[in-house]
């Protein structure tokens, strides 16, 4: 329940700052880039993860289309993608016609489609479902940090550079939320700086961070930690982006531009291991077809450019991209050429380390659960595979439970 969130976050903050000394030490270490290596370096396969969130509830049926299914063709009239236009993958399913770049990744064996992803007792609220996806817990924020935050605590308990985890966009996605490893968040790399021409001013600004100051309130302590991370990472991040050159044709839109930053950070090997980006506009209750087509076009163009960029820098061999949304949409269209909130939808996992092809099981379009596609794969199986396959972390420790294994990454 919503009203418990802050209490819990506050409780957590207090709990974690009880051990203020060690925290300050680790922060100081990461600020100087002299962090200790990961505790299990031998177990860390050293892959990077790019998280692409499609916000608003992506209509999975319009992304991976069951074009040969009668039930699909019957339920979908205005949003139907016909056999003539779909990019066929086999005699049952195909990709949205705009996903030509993903289609070529599929042909190269670099695209895994995990079908029917959701969780038990699905919630159709954007916000609650978002929290469940971002924390990998049915309790949402009440469970504490986001799943990437917990992954970092598990994998780098003694600290790492602040730019270990980066979100390119306005607001922190909850998955990155962490009391120990707050993410670096930036929108425009050129503007990721504090400006002053005067040396004493710059030095005072840098000194205003999180040194041991027991009198600080929780909020102030957190803000001071953010200042430390910002001053430590600002120059390195800007430099990496400025120095990175690529022939990949990133489009001008915010989504492609955010992937350009991802490509630079991973290509320049800045120590960044997780980059998160977001593409919004998927809450398509009315006139879905045009809006969703445009989203697919933007998504494909961005991912295509990123793939090329990573191939140029060689980071493609070490990078996995995960595409997900908080829920799919109802099978039956609503009365306004759109779709209402639903349940299961496919997740996409993309990259050279990926074992391409279909994973999981396609949900039935005739045996619906409350009008919705029922879950066939718990999305946390995918998280577990990535936590282990990319970072060598124990999936059950990060996620708090064991989930069925998926052979998502090449051995």
């Amino acid at each position, binding site marked *: 329940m919503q009203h418990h969130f802050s209490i819990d976050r506050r409780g957590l903050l207090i709990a974690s700052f009880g051990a203020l000394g060690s925290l300050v030490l680790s922060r100081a270490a990461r600020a100087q880039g002299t962090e200790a290596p990961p505790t299990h370096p031998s177990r860390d396969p050293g892959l990077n993860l790019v998280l692409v969130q499609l916000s608003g509830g992506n209509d999975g049926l319009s992304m991976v289309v069951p074009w040969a299914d009668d039930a699909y063709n019957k339920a979908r009239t205005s949003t139907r993608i016909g056999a003539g236009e779909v990019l066929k993958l086999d005699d049952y399913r195909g990709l949205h016609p705009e996903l030509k770049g993903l289609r070529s990744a599929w042909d190269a064996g670099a695209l895994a489609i995990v079908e029917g992803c959701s969780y038990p007792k699905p919630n159709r609220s954007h916000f609650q479902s978002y929290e469940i996806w971002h924390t990998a817990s049915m309790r949402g924020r009440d469970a504490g940090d986001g799943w990437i935050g917990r992954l970092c605590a598990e994998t780098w308990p003694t600290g790492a550079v602040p730019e270990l985890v980066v979100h390119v966009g306005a607001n922190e996605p909850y998955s990155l939320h962490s009391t120990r490893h707050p993410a670096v968040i930036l929108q425009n790399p050129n503007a990721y700086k504090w400006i002053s021409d005067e040396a004493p001013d710059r030095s005072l600004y840098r000194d205003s961070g999180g040194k041991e100051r027991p009198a600080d*309130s929780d909020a102030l302590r957190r803000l001071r930690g953010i200042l430390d991370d910002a001053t430590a990472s600002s120059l390195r991040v800007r430099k990496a982006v*400025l120095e990175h050159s690529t022939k990949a044709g990133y489009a001008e839109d915010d989504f492609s531009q955010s992937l350009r930053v991802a490509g630079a950070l991973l290509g320049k090997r800045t120590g960044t291991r997780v980059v998160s980006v977001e593409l919004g506009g998927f809450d398509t209750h009315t006139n879905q077809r045009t809006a969703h087509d445009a989203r697919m076009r933007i998504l494909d163009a961005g991912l295509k450019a990123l793939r090329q960029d990573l191939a140029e820098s060689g980071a493609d061999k070490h990078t996995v991209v995960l595409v997900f949304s908080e829920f799919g949409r109802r099978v039956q269209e609503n009365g306004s050429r*759109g779709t209402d909130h639903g349940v299961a939808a496919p997740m996409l996992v993309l990259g050279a380390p990926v074992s391409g092809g279909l994973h999981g099981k396609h949900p039935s379009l005739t045996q619906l659960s409350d009008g919705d596609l029922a879950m066939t794969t718990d999305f946390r199986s995918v998280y577990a595979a990535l936590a282990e396959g990319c970072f060598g972390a124990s999936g059950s420790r990060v996620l708090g439970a064991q989930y069925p294994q998926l052979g998502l990454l090449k051995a």
Partner: protein
Amino acid sequence: MILTILLTCLPAGDGPLDKSFQAREAEHLWNRAGFGALPEQIEASVTLGREETVRRLLSIPADEQPFFVERFLDVPREQYKERSEAERNRMNNAARERERKQLQDYTGWWVERMQTADSPLRERMVLFWHGYFTSSVEEVRRANMLIRQNQFFRENALGNFRTILKGMLRDPALLTYLDNDANRKGRPNENLARELMELFTLGLGNYTEKDVKEVARALTGRTVDGQGDYAFDKGAHDDGAKEILGQKGKFNGDDVARILLEQPACSRHVARRLLRWFESVEPAEARVEAYAQVLRDGDWELQPFLARLLNDPSFYSEDVVGARVLSPIEYMVGISRRMGQRVPSPLVASASSMLGMRLFSPPNVKGWEEGTAWITTSTLMQRGNIAGMLLGAVRVDDVFVTSDADMQEMAEGGAAMAPAKKDPPKGAAGAAFTAMKRVVDAGWSPTLNFSARMARQEAKTDAQIVDAMLSDLLACEAPQDTRERMLSYLAGERVMLELRDGEFLKGGAPAERVLRRMAHLILSLPEAQLG
């Protein structure tokens, strides 16, 4: 100004002073029931006492600054069809531009009210309702609908929640935003029904999926006509029997409002949201219930609720004072109000967009996430840059573009660098950059005079100057270590200017420049984001 209103009826002689309402409490009240205040306003409030200050804040009428909304209507469909494609494109572009311009003008007008209006509590509540019953220009598109919604909030900001809820269920912008214009009998669209219960009235866990479907049916037919006004389409309304939250009947939209308002969960939800907004601390359940009772007892009137809250000792407790992470708007309007120096409103609006709060464009139907979510590694530094720009210590170009100084700083790392790209930023940042540059290029420059300010407050020594600067610029008391660092900073700069302690203000223009830099530093600090 409000100052005059507050000073006109001072108690005769030295009236009894309320010992629990000193400058700290008064400033807190002005921070949370407004956007911060001048030292003189705070002093006046201490003299008046808490109850009287609250009473006046609540009773100041809305100020009479009209904004005339224009409705741009479409060309009739038949005529539109006859035009060539080139003409249609031209018409569509012109229409889009008109809408964009009108909303931009109104946003500026609104920000102006936040900076200068005599009724800061009303302004604060307008901002609250704007983030509560959200509607975004991305979906609504028609500026006039969004403006009329905002004006409805202005009229009812301190009024009655029932009136507001009922108004919203007839509000063209909200009905469009949540697709109720497409919610028709036999073809229900659940968008409004779901968010109505989850976000506007009951909260998650207090209704079922069945209720969502039934409420959607009851709301069918509530739509928007060609003029952009509310219309009830009888033919589209499903007047069959429904069961909503245990009640059965042939319910319509008004019945839905009645049923929702009858739920105890509704008063708790509204009380919780208001407590969070004013206190920025998660309220205990018992407190939520007590305040929910105030709403129920007052038949949803907001004034008794606010009067009780703003007089509540808990509102002034250690946990609450200074615990709020200021939103971008609060941060910038706060600077303007505390300095008594208005900033061009388009500058505030575009800077706010850049910092993650574009008015009329909330990120989703839940509105903006409050609290520490506002502050990221990048928005923290950018807030400082924007404050520097408002003070004339930072150039607008440097905020967005990699400058020669940046290049030099990066080159110090050793690597040879390509020349800086002077490309203007793209996407959302690009829009903010253009808007801010327009204001600056039009000749705006800050006219703050810190030396005069210090002289007026008789601050002469380093310690007096640092204390006055911190107290003027920050919404709450500065931590001790900050004060010490500022002291040694000022002493260092003073020695450079070859001045003795106590004579700093005799340093003329160079001393004024140091004070501006110091103000820029103070507003860049983590503690400047709290209030």
